[in-house]
């Protein structure tokens, strides 16, 4: 677990198979001042979570879900400084 977020950052968390494929569980990403706020979808490609395919080459996995600040959210919701974004592989609870 990393420490408190720096000003102007968002925290990205990965779970289960996604975490193991990426090789990390948590990162802090700095927002670029003056640029549009990224969405979860933008960060998926930027962090190469689907492998090395570029954004134009592939689609997001149909089963991918994300949580923003620990609540399910849209992949297209712009992230705010201080947000915690989690990429969630398919759920298998109970």
């Amino acid at each position, binding site marked *: 677990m990393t420490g408190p977020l720096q000003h102007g950052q968002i925290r990205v968390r990965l*779970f*289960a198979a996604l975490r193991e494929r990426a090789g990390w569980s948590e990162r802090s990403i700095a927002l670029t001042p003056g640029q549009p706020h990224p969405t979860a979808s933008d960060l998926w490609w930027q962090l190469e979570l689907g492998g090395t395919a570029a954004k134009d080459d592939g689609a997001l996995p149909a089963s991918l879900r994300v949580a923003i600040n620990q609540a399910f959210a849209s992949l297209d919701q712009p992230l705010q400084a201080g947000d915690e974004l989690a990429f969630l*592989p398919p759920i298998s*609870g*109970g």
Partner: protein
Amino acid sequence: MALRVRLHHDAFDPLAALAAWQRHLELELELDPSSPPEPSRQRAAAEAHFIGRVRGINAAGEPLDALELEHYPGMTEAQIEHLAAAVSARHGLIHALVEHRVGRALPGEALVLVAVGADRRGPAQRGCQELLEALKHEAPFWKREWIGSSGRWIEGNTPL
């Protein structure tokens, strides 16, 4: 509506959890100042429970050594509470209990306990089923099957 959600990092006994929950509900009724108690504050006339345990074999028929459950601390608990409150409101449940294992669990150990109370058997049974399905699809848990030192993440749930 009485609601309890618990995650267990070690093996838990679902019947002991049910007994503790029952004592809690009885204590709540005793403390209730209304006399006679409101119908909604009486002991539920119908209770439905579900207990799920780790299978000894996987879907391919191979013997399993363990099942690992990963969760999202904080979100998992909050999401279960949200799901339980929604199902309870939809079916008019009087109480709902969810206890769920996390971490590495052995075959035969309890994975999940869902227990709900209502005034009639239909809402109790339907509420228990719906809450279980909600947990399976809407609460952030991920299962990994272990055979020896080889682990495989499970995508999706066993069929109904």
